[in-house]
């Protein structure tokens, strides 16, 4: 058997809590085995900032601001397979609870109405990415190839999914275990 080249994997977290990334790390010793077949590109795990052409991109978190849109598009443009990972990427998740309110209401609640604020005002530093009116699922912005539900998806789910991709099989997500929480 010839040795297949390693698959390049990139990950990112948009409007998420990094819980999906933590769950990824819960693969524990299986990570060592995976690393025989996978190498990381841009990811919070590597701290690589520049995204190269990749085989797989894992997106955690929903789309809440303009920067998320740019990052997501960069991943879409550079990843052969783009995966929505976890509840927030798939339907906005907990951050989407803010969709019940207008942006103004949310920001005033946090930055104006909060007691004991010094200089209460809505943050407007140009460095800050502009917020979208709502938090959106990632597939409403770019095409997504696979969805891994769960909050977070379990380490087993990640392992099964990546193993199937490594073996060149069509991933059978949800056939063994499916959870949204």
């Amino acid at each position, binding site marked *: 058997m010839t040795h297949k080249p390693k698959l390049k994997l990139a990950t990112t977290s948009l409007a998420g809590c990094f819980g999906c990334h933590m769950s990824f790390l819960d693969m524990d010793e299986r990570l060592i085995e995976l690393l025989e077949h996978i190498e990381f590109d841009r990811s919070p795990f590597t701290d690589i900032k520049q995204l190269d052409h990749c085989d797989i991109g894992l997106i955690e978190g929903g789309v809440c601001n303009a920067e998320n849109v740019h990052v997501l*598009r960069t991943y879409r443009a550079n990843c052969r397979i783009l995966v929505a990972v976890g509840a927030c990427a798939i339907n906005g998740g907990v951050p989407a609870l803010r969709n019940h309110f207008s*942006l103004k209401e949310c920001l005033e609640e946090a930055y104006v109405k909060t007691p004991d604020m010094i200089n209460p005002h809505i943050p407007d530093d140009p460095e800050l990415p502009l917020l979208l*009116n709502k938090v959106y699922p990632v597939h409403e*912005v770019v095409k997504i190839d696979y969805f891994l539900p769960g909050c977070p998806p379990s380490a087993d789910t990640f392992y099964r999914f990546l193993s199937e991709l490594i073996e060149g099989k069509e991933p059978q997500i949800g056939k063994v275990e499916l959870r949204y929480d």
Partner: protein
Amino acid sequence: MSEHLHLLHILHELQQKHRYISEASICEVAAQLSLPVSQVRAVVAFYAFFYSTPCGHYHILFSNCTSCGYRAGGTDLLRLLSQKLSVNIGQTRKDEQVSIDETSCIGMCDHGPSLLINGVPLVHVDAEKIEQMAALIEADKPLNEWPSAWFHVKDHIYKRGLLLDSSLSAGDGLRAMLTRGREGTLTEIIQSKLRGRGGAGFSTGLKWRLCQQAAGEAHYVVCNADEGEPGTFKDRMLLQQHADALCEGMTICAYVIGAYQGFIYLRGEYRYLLPHLQATLMHRRKLGLLGTAILGQTGLEFDIDIVVGAGAYICGEESALIESLEEKPGIPRSRPPFPVTHGYLGQPTVVNNVETLIAATHIAYKGSAWFTAVGTPASTGSKLLSISGDCAAAGIYEYPFGVTIQQILEECGADNAQAVQVGGPAGTLLDQTAFHRQIAFEDVGTGGSFMIFNQERDILTIIHQFATFFAHESCGFCTPCRVGTILLKQGLDKIMIGQGARNDMAELQRVSELVRRYSHCGLGHTAANSILDGLQHFPQAFEQQLTQYDYTARFELNAALQEARQLTRHDGKEAHLEQGQD
């Protein structure tokens, strides 16, 4: 039951008086009628002509139909009037003088752009009239001081056939009925092979027979005068000119099935016809053609009440109509059981279209052979068509069944047609290759709507208007129609504004098929017809609007940043997003 005590009528009076129906009124009405407050609240919420916040003293509803709508004349008259009067569409002006919104087809498709002002149709609206209207409203002139010609609804009949040529005096049908007897009359109706003119085409004789045979404490006859299919207005003319024959048809049906009570369910948009219909009923009572001892026959007893709807297309569906008669939201029932066995108040009920009942009167008088001599073997008799859109003479045409679309187009002066919508938005969208087809239940069926679109029209705009109509009129009962009609509208919105990608077309196809196959009633089954027809016959209408991208965001990205731009006062290049991605 007296019509004045009907919940819809009480709510209408409150709406007229206070320009809205308050929570307090809802509770009072519920107590007055011994109804649950939730039922009254649900009815107020269901019907478009009831409002929970005050409308203006002048409340204007523009039709949004493709034929009598505010864009039918080229200019957007809705926007024009709202600008003139500085009123936001859908919001009452601060001084409560005026409110402007749109409504589904008001059945004035042979009168150009039309509207309802405080419930009364105002026809042939153009930019000049808008100017004058604005002045009259600002001057607070009462409607009875407005030019009366503006409110003149004319019946444009361009072709008469079997029914419209046939003369009949009040009582002719009833006397023939008595001569033939109950069974003889029913046999005549069955032999005429008369089929429902509302569009579904169920055998009228069989319907009467099934109802007659159904056991019940009482039987009922209901005339479906809820002519809501956009592009249809032939019942408007029939109610105006042939109300006698209609009442007579209901009486004949009542005699056959053993009913003592009938109802005319009149769409709210036709409320202006109510005095005329009430006068007809009074007159018939005076002549001994309605009430007790009809034609002097002891025991022959039947009367008719009129119930007026309040803006809900779904109430044209017979079981939804019955729910509405029962003072509830117009949610279609599960069938079976069908109304012929379990209809109004759970009793056997015949629901027939206006045109069907009038045809029955003529058949009772002239016999079935007179009727079957015209039409095709499977579609006997004639059909009244409401023809509108791009033709020289919009109006009513009566044709024998079997007439080709081409012949109709020639006779109404439509020499540049690219498409015809037969049967309204719920019907069939046909391109030129289908113009040889026939109007008949076995070929192209129709309840009467026949809308013509010439080469200048954008077919996608029309399909989008139809999709908007169905999303607005879906009753909300079942998942596929409630959610699906909204998704279809949104899918078309996206393509219309030039942000659609190829996969959006596939998605439209898929959702359309779901809505058509899995919905609860006829509204859902037909709501996607024009989209499916459009994708099949006019794919270029969709394709030419697509972006070059394979996939585009489902929402308007840049618009989604608008609120943040305002809050942070940033408006540079980095504060904007492109919709597509290369």
